[in-house]
């Protein structure tokens, strides 16, 4: 704490001293984990959600990254450009026109990529279960985690990010995507319906 005093926490992992942190991380990881596991471990700390706000759940998404709930502590930072992100949170209802935007955004993200579907609307339509203009996100992109609620509270979204991190490490989602190029739970990566058909000139 006091300046000038020999730091009592020398050798622990903390962000203030990058050299010490790197040395310590190497001690923990080197020779103990397989390369794939290191990839999975590292991916859990660099989830970059793209900000594609499709509906009102976006307000809770914003609250999750506000100082009070601070989801950045889980290593996830929202970013605007899909080309530099690997993680998409579907924030609520997806209309037919937004389904195309969702698919195009998903295609642009870098591998390995993950999807969280947020809210009752993303599960089965929610309030708009019988609407003519709503599509279910699981018909458009493969979803890893669903969150129930209308809207789900920020805590639920933070929990979902933690669950996703657990899933990435347990199921080796990142490393298997890199080594095998596919995942067996991703059999239908391409939606059956052409979601962008209205857009063709």
């Amino acid at each position, binding site marked *: 704490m006091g300046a000038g005093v020999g730091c009592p926490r020398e050798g622990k992992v903390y962000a203030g001293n990058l050299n010490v942190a790197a040395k310590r991380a190497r001690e923990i990881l080197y020779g103990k984990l397989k390369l794939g596991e290191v990839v999975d471990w590292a991916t859990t700390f660099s989830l970059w959600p793209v900000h594609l706000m499709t509906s009102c759940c976006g307000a809770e998404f914003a609250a999750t990254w506000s100082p009070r709930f601070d989801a950045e502590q889980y290593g996830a930072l929202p970013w605007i450009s899909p080309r530099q992100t690997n993680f998409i949170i579907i924030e609520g209802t997806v*209309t*037919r*026109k937004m389904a195309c935007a969702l698919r195009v955004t998903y295609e642009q993200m870098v591998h390995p990529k993950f999807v969280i579907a947020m809210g009752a609307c993303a599960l089965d339509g929610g309030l708009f*279960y*019988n*609407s*003519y*203009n709503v599509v279910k996100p699981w018909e458009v992109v493969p979803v890893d985690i669903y969150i129930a609620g209308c809207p789900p509270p920020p805590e639920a979204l933070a929990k979902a990010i933690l669950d996703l991190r657990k899933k990435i490490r347990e199921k080796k989602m990142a490393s298997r995507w890199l080594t095998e190029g596919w995942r067996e739970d991703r059999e239908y990566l391409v939606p059956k319906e052409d979601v962008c*058909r*209205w857009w063709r000139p």
Partner: protein
Amino acid sequence: MSLQALAEVIKERLGTLAKEVRIAKGHVEIVTEGGRLTEAARALKEMGFDHVKSVTAVDYPKEGKIRVTYHVSSYLKEDLSKYIVGLSVDVPRDNPIVETLVPLWNSAEFFEREVFEFFGVHFKGHPDLRPLLLIPELAEKRVLRKDFVVREEGIYEGVPHEYK
């Protein structure tokens, strides 16, 4: 100016252009006939109503008509800016064509596109009449007309008889 006074002024100004001028809940409602919509709108514009707040439509399947309503108000005239005036026109349901008001009020452009896609009302002379929110296949089904049926869950099946 009170709402009553505004209604009087409008009645005087429009004369025979308006079939009916009445005070609805908090706003003045004018009904015109098909061919006189543009003239009535021009008269309103000369009074100082300078923008369209919304364009909407109501479907009356039994009477076989669709009523298209323009809600207009004013930004620049202070005494008019407190009020909203609804300018309505009835068109036949099987062939709904309305003269566009975009040349008069620019802000009507997107609203007319919405009414076009949801009710199938054609606006003659509109600069860019394409569906706005819906995909074209859906827009062809005229989804906000009363005869478009959406899927319903049988959640009311257990309702007792006396409440039916």
